[in-house]
């Protein structure tokens, strides 16, 4: 698990391929591939070029504002930030355990978020790659292309996501940036009418979620070798699990497995995450590189997210998803599954689990009556909240002064945990598919497909019109622009040769 191809031995004299930014992932990312004169990849890196400054955004604010404001960090998983912050401030207030009603409503909100996010990723962001192939026509390879060629698939994706969004609206009070969870509990229960409106759609959602797992399985069966080998590399896996080893996406203890599937760490209390993890800064990326403290940077990096969670748990506590988990594990033929594309299959198993959990929660009377807040609080200085967000483990860590202002905070988002893994995926694919060949859009998309498997949220960048072109440039060793390919909403794919660029070397 070293760092082959992270840094070229002799970067001078290599030409550079830049993919900037990576399309269909959140925010700005840039891939640089340094090629030698024989088109062999000598260096491959996924750069994160925007510094977000999340912590500075939060520090100095009253703690009770934070669960609402952190939702503005991310347009894709605001609920995960909302709940992770709320869990952390439960600890600061000494308000744990929260009430049964608070836990039921928060869990419902969280699994609704998991459903809508996984549906968006599979049907909107990845199914174009999966259904059309990685080198297919770029105009076809997006959600619109899917809707045209597979209208039933696209419609299921939209309606699954809509159902998840409706759960979020009902539990948080608003469609966007609601306030359902508060430090110490929640601020509203569900009405019977709200619960019944959700229950009405459940049978259809359950069927579509099952269909989605079947689609993912079919894709693996149809192209078994590709799905086993594309962007595959060995790594440790980390996630929360319930104390009894079950999958739990809302709460639990940290567990790490090594690449062979052996449990390295288990039962790690969320408040002690810093005993397990440390973060490393590398000069060429704004995003940190977390790793297991005791194993060090070269052996201690790990993957999080669906691939890790489905294999890290001992079982999934819902019947349909558990059947699918067993089939997934069997596909590994006695080994852990390390293929990046298997994230998609694991993601759909989790989506099915989310619908099953939602169904069970909607039968829980605690959603409709009970205390909103716990009692007998004993105030603490520090609190950590960890949740399994759609993309993986999300950590919020706050230090709150006696004046109720946040003095310090540390956020480790899922994509940061997967930083090293995404770099490994880029290297793996670049080495296999790009070396010794001319660069084409289809080939470059292989790199992007590998990154997209992790559903990264590279930054919570603004999405003002016209901001995010894709720029691919080939530079000769002497800096001459050999080729330049740009993608944009307005003009699609355009190629310019011998144009100045202004990319950093």
């Amino acid at each position: 698990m070293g760092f082959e191809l992270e840094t070229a031995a002799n970067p001078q004299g290599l030409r550079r391929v830049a993919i900037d930014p990576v399309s269909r992932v959140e925010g700005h990312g840039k891939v640089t591939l340094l090629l030698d004169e024989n088109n062999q990849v000598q260096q491959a890196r996924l750069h994160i070029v925007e510094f977000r400054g999340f912590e500075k955004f939060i520090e100095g604010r009253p703690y009770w504002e934070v669960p609402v404001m952190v939702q503005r960090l991310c347009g894709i998983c605001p609920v995960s930030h909302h709940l992770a912050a709320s869990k952390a401030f439960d600890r600061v207030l000494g308000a744990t355990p929260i009430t049964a009603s608070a836990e039921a409503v928060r869990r419902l909100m969280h699994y609704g978020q998991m459903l809508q996010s996984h549906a968006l990723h599979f049907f909107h962001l990845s199914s174009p790659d999966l259904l059309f192939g990685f080198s297919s026509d770029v105009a076809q390879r997006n959600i619109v292309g899917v809707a045209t060629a597979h209208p039933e698939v696209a419609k299921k994706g939209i309606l699954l996501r809509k159902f998840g969004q409706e759960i979020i609206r009902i539990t948080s009070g608003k469609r966007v940036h609601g306030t359902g969870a508060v430090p110490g509990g929640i601020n509203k229960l569900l009405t019977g009418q709200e619960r019944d409106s959700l229950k009405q759609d459940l049978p259809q959602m359950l069927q579509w979620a099952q269909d989605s797992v079947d689609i993912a399985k079919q894709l693996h069966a149809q192209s078994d070798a590709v799905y086993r080998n594309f962007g595959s590399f060995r790594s440790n896996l980390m996630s929360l699990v319930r104390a009894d080893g079950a999958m739990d996406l809302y709460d639990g203890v940290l567990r790490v497995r090594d690449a062979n599937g052996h449990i390295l760490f288990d039962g790690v209390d969320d408040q002690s995450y810093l005993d397990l993890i440390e973060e490393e800064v590398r000069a060429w990326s704004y995003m940190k590189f977390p790793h297991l403290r005791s194993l060090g940077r070269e052996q201690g990096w790990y993957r999080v997210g669906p691939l890790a969670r489905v294999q890290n748990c001992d079982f999934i506590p819902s019947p349909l998803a558990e059947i699918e988990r067993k089939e997934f594990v069997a596909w590994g033929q006695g080994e852990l599954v390390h293929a990046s594309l298997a994230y998609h299959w694991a993601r759909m198993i989790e989506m099915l689990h989310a619908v099953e959990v939602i169904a069970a929660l909607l039968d829980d009377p605690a959603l409709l009556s009970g205390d909103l807040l716990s009692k007998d609080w004993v105030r603490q200085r520090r609190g950590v909240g960890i949740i399994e967000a759609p993309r993986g483990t999300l950590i919020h860590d706050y230090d709150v002064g006696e004046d109720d202002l946040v003095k310090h905070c540390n956020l480790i988002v899922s994509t940061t945990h997967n930083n090293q893994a995404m770099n490994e995926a880029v290297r793996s694919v670049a080495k296999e598919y790009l070396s010794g060949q001319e660069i084409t859009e289809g080939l470059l998309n292989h790199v992007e497909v590998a990154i997209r498997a992790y559903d990264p949220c590279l930054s919570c960048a603004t999405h003002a019109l016209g901001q995010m072109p894709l720029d691919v440039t080939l530079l000769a060793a002497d800096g001459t622009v050999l080729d330049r390919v740009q993608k944009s909403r307005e003009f699609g794919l355009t190629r310019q040769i011998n144009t100045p660029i202004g990319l950093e070397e």
Partner: protein
Amino acid sequence: MSTKPAILVLGWGNLSRGDDALGPMFVAGLQERLPRELQTEVEFLDDYQLQIEHAIDLVGRSHILFVDASLDCAAPLEARAVRARRDASYTSHALSAEALLQVYEDMQGDHAPDATLLALRGQEFGLGEPLSQVAHSHLQAGLEWGIQWISKFAATGRQ
């Protein structure tokens, strides 16, 4: 028979990202300023990003006004008709207005409603920053434009 208002105003952006807030602030401002007699003819919606499920919000409308901050448009604003189009929507997890209209057409098997994209010029998009002074003036211009736009189509609807 649908009881939805015929006009939808849909703005998007991040309230904590400086001038990226122009879209949702336009929606809030227009809702506040619009004359009472026009309020019932319009539904207002704001979101963080344009997403696939917004295609469902377009159903049953005659006119759509999309509103977003822009770094490319002329100051203070530009408005143009948008039509369903297969574009790359390389903005990651978010769709363009054109692609959203295309999703609508593919889903519904019908032409998308008439749609206009109002781009409000912004300049500062830093996390935690308030709306800039210049964007504030662009917002005011946009609101005046928006009231006229709605008056025109609401009147058309009543004829």
